[in-house]
């Protein structure tokens, strides 16, 4: 059967038969590295063209339609353009910090891939504190933004970085609290446990209204955490030109851009894992026939389908809502989302203890 875990298994057996265990490990590490880099590059290309097509569709425009069939190669052409640009460092900048910041953004985005289950039994590291690991690593991303803004020697960059810092740390709270709602229900931080607990229904359906509130808070919070519109104050074009990456050009800018899109993918993958059952197929009660048909769809298709649905949702937000002001943004978090998600967590706990969920 063709599935990711089967292919990986076969590869492992074949390598073990032909090479020594050490060499097998090294080859597998190299293969995993190549696969991850491929995923990164692929995601960057796909998400950029998807964003442009979705925005064109929402605004009744055509969008990119010249390069390749229906403009599908546009982001590839953009990548080549960025490759040919000079990635210069301004003379007043702190050279080391300026050049290290995009690397940190990329490392953070890459490290977040580790606990994500892409398909059934296909995961880099199913560590027992998976969700805590994701929230711990993702909070490092603010450091790269602050480094970039601080070292640029540009007022726009500094303002963008400070705003972004205030915004990311604030929204981390309600994102964390809504993630905790799922953990209370599951009783485990391990990603595979969380997915297996949704075999008889996804949490968003099983958990009644409190779980749905948690899902909505999570989506709002991660939209803010990834600096996407309507919360894109860090790079508000009309006020700060480009925010924290004003001074970046060429490939260094492209790395920030790529890291942002991969972060969007990762938070959506996390949302799909926690609330929409990860790679679990959609099942309805006792409809044996329907459930059987759903089981035939590969688990990877389910995972990527749910993830891309959430990404589409976040893109829809971007082209629907106007940008918030910084005081409105902080009001929304501290006066609405945080109290709501705290009370919601108590409700979810009550539900879990009384076993009101399905």
């Amino acid at each position, binding site marked *: 059967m063709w599935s990711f*875990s089967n292919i*990986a*298994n*076969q*590869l*492992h*057996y074949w390598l073990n038969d032909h090479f020594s265990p050490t060499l097998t*490990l090294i080859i597998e*590490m190299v293969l*995993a*590295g190549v696969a991850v*880099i491929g995923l990164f*590059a692929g995601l960057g290309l796909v998400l950029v063209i998807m964003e442009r097509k979705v925005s064109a569709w929402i605004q009744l425009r055509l969008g990119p339609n010249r390069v390749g069939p229906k403009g599908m190669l546009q982001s590839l052409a953009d990548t080549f353009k960025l*490759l*040919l*640009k000079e990635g*210069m460092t301004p*003379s*007043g900048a702190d050279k080391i910090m300026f050049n290290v910041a995009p690397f940190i953004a*990329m*490392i953070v985005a*890459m*490290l977040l*891939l580790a606990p994500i289950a892409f398909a059934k039994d296909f*995961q*880099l*590291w199913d560590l027992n504190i998976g969700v805590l690991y994701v929230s711990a690593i993702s909070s490092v991303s603010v450091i790269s933004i602050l480094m970039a803004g601080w070292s*640029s020697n*540009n*007022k*726009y960059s*500094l303002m963008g970085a*400070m705003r972004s810092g205030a915004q990311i740390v*604030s929204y*981390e*709270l309600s994102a*964390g*609290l809504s993630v*905790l709602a799922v953990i*209370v*229900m599951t*009783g485990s931080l391990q990603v*595979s446990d969380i997915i*297996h607990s949704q075999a008889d*229904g996804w949490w968003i*359906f099983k958990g009644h209204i409190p779980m749905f509130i948690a899902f909505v808070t999570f989506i709002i919070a991660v939209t803010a955490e990834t600096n996407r519109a309507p919360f894109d104050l860090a790079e508000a074009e009309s006020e700060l*030109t480009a925010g924290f990456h004003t*001074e970046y050009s*060429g490939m260094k800018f492209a790395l920030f851009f790529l890291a942002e899109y991969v972060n969007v993918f990762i938070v959506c993958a996390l949302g799909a894992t926690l609330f929409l059952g990860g790679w679990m197929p959609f099942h309805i*009660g*006792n409809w044996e026939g329907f*459930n059987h048909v759903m*089981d035939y769809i590969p688990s990877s298709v389910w995972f990527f389908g749910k993830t891309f649905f959430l990404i589409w949702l976040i893109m829809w937000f971007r082209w629907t809502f106007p940008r918030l002001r910084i005081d409105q943004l*902080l009001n929304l978090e*501290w006066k609405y989302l945080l*109290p709501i998600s705290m009370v919601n967590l*108590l409700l979810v*706990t009550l539900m879990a*203890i009384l076993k009101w969920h*399905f």
Partner: protein
Amino acid sequence: MFISGKNDIPQFEQVLASCSSIFTCNEYIRGNQNYMGASSLIVLIISAIAFSGGAILISRLFLKPTTNKQKGEPYECGIPTTGKTWVQLNVGYYLFALIFLIFDVELVFLYPWAVVAKSMGWQALVEIVIFFFILFAGFLYAHKKGALKWI
């Protein structure tokens, strides 16, 4: 409702017996960790550095860097920049960072609680209500003092 048959989920023993690759669990082969284990972090860090470093190096190959005084100036929409760049910022950022710190530590305390909450039952709920009450009192105090207001 949304309930499926449980038989399509492999039992833990079956998973252990069937898996042995680097991507699937391999408790028998390498240590006690499932899947690729902690070595995946090394792979991820190295591939991130290789990817970004490689991209920057490739772009270096194509260009002939030039420098002049104007090119190195900070970009502020064409107007010559005046004064120091590292200006004083609104005190609000500092206040929000302080409040965030309190709540973030609280969040870290909540993770271990959340794992055992369901099995502990009512005890867990009472404890967290007291915990939230104290926290919320502090939050209301900050709100009353105007720390949450953007000046």
